[in-house]
């Protein structure tokens, strides 16, 4: 099974280094609005990394009204859910549909964009100083996230 990003809010301290790592990696500029990952207070009041889960049945894909070949597609082999901006109509239904706040809007272009796991080598996990974002084997997700429970 492919690896997945796992957020551990209990370890996050809101330094936002991940946002800068992502923005720099993906757009070459320092500006968190270009980042695919961002930190936001969750319902428990903890600072939590908002990350794409690359869902098996992605709500963003489902919400997309474009007919024919959709601009949001999940690659079966790698498990990566991607946006193809050429076909995107900019309705933002996918942004509203994502339960994890992982679909973002570029304020400069109006396009939506999202995490693509840096094609299997996510830059953010290499920068996170506390281990609040980890890239783990799908088999291990249950075990690792259980560390913060109970």
């Amino acid at each position, binding site marked *: 099974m492919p690896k997945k990003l796992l957020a551990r809010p209990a370890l996050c301290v809101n330094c936002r280094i991940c946002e800068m790592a992502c923005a720099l990696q993906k757009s070459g500029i*320092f500006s968190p609005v270009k980042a695919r990952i961002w930190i936001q207070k969750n319902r428990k009041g903890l600072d939590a990394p908002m990350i794409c889960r690359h869902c098996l049945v992605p709500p963003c894909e489902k919400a997309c009204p474009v007919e024919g070949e959709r601009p949001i597609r999940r690659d079966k082999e790698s498990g990566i859910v991607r946006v193809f901006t050429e076909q995107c109509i900019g309705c933002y239904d996918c942004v509203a549909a994502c339960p994890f706040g992982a679909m973002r809007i570029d304020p400069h272009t109006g396009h939506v964009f999202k995490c693509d796991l840096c094609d299997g080598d996510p830059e953010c996990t290499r920068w996170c100083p506390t281990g609040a974002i980890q890239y783990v084997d799908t088999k291990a997700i249950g075990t690792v996230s259980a560390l913060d429970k109970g």
Partner: protein
Amino acid sequence: MYGWAGTLLRVNLTDRTVRSEEHPPTLRHGYLGGRGINSRLLYDEVKPGVDPLGPENKLFFGTSPLTGTGLVTSGRIHVTARSPLTGILGDSNAGGHFGPELKWAGYDHLIIEGAAEKPVYLWIDDGHVEIRDAGHLWGKVVSETYAMLRDELGDPRVRIAAIGPAGENLVRFASLMTDHGNACGKTGMGTVMGAKRLKAVAVRGTRGFRAADPERFKAVARDWTQKIRQGPAYEAFSRVGTLMYLSQYHAQGRSVARNVQATADIDYIHRYSTESMMKHMTRSVACFGCPIHCKHEFKIRKGPYAGEAGHGTEFCIMSAHGPACGNPDETAVLRINNLCNEYGICGDTSGITLAAAFEWYQRGIITREDTDGIPLEWGNTEAQIEMLMKTIRREGLGDLLADGSAAAAARIGKGAERFVSHAKGGDIDAVDIRTLKGCALSDAVSSRGGDPQRGWPGVEFYPMKPEKARKLFGNEHAADPRSYEGKGALVNHYASICTLCDALGICKFSSAWFATPIALKEMGELVTAATGVDFDEKRMGEIAARVHNVERAYLVREGITRKDDTIHGRAMEEPVPSGPYKGERLDRDGMARMLDDYYRVVGWDRETGIPTRETLERLGLKDVADQLQAMGKMP
């Protein structure tokens, strides 16, 4: 342009004009950013003798080429103006997320001029800058101001620097709050905001900026994050932050109970131990871009303040409002911490000021009549909180205290000034300066008055072998806290690091001022990676010296000379009463020798403490030398 955003934003509140200016290379390359450029702008644009509370004073907000990059603690904002507390250079910096947001909006520096007729706030939304009415925000505490502004501007991610009621009431040590619990506390930058009737600056920035070499930058940034994490103090400091110092200073005999009348031999000192404080802390929080995350959130579970929760409490406020005020209840200090954050008053200076008032009361210099019936008796925490609120509201004795302890003592007379410890009107931190001769020198020559962050040599706190001290600082006694020898080079070494941290908007706890291997050379590498301009160790040293000399020239222009480079209060008069340093004090002859040595090291005239022409010209400051000459100030 890389690293810098490239624009200075100038806002005049009197005629309500907004102007974007190109960021000149002379400033960028000669002073980097933050405190460096702010200090030069202050020197150039604020004429000598202006009223700190008048429209001629200006307020400079500065970021740096590292601010907002995500690299090592790059989240700070530096604010500078002529200080209403000390009358000399005033500046203070804070963490949080405001600085980066300003930079992402496209501005390296924000210059506020003039004064508004009615309360206003400034709204910066990338290129859109607007002066807006703040009548509805005036009088609100800081968290309410944040909530109302974010609601009004329709974006919860707007970052805000705001003042509270203390700044509106022109309390001379009002703070400027950025995010929850981050304060530009010292020297009254919030007071200058209040005088300009500027309640807040709200920023949303999306434009961003570029690095010269993104790949190299990423490599350097990751490398330094690792180095910080592997530093010897990282593990403890990331858990407890500056609260670490509480127990250390008690054990070292450097605590200052009851306004420096006692050390750690008070019966409630255990309540101020690091571990005792940590019981109230619920989680760690970081400023932007910081792998250290030394701040906390806290919640009090038991006692009279049960349920009180808040952000960020540090060593300084714990010590100043705790033992220094004779306060036996550490939870009361957490309550005071919240009041300081909400009303926007410096937690450190307010504590030191109240401590002096308590001692005046003890000695009968002031009585219940002066305090409107409030018994300022050591240990009366209710009285302490009441007097703090009266200071914030400028009522009764609080109106006097709101001008700062040195000014209040001068008004009160009766020898009150003997019990106020300060240097140039800046309070001495709540650590016993008599036990640290190099720190005393640093306080005496600091460009913003008494203050540890200007270059206290931390090695004096921890024993160092004489051979090592000789190797590092050229004198085997340099790191000995009791010695007056070799302190000039020692203080200059740490002052250079601190100056550059401030100019780069990075936190001193990620530098060689603390236990992290980031000094001039490494800072140069970081700036080079961000800007593409080559900054080696030598050039970084010159920049630190240049900033330092421009600040000194500003002070000289305001009339400061060698006679002012001293410590006021009991440190020069009375010995330490107990503990490991019993009997130790600051000796006038020793202080004079340290000053001679320091002036020699930095190239200032021995008799006057004024930078020599040779020193200024070596640093490319011929214009400054010429101006001082024309004013008849040159030695």
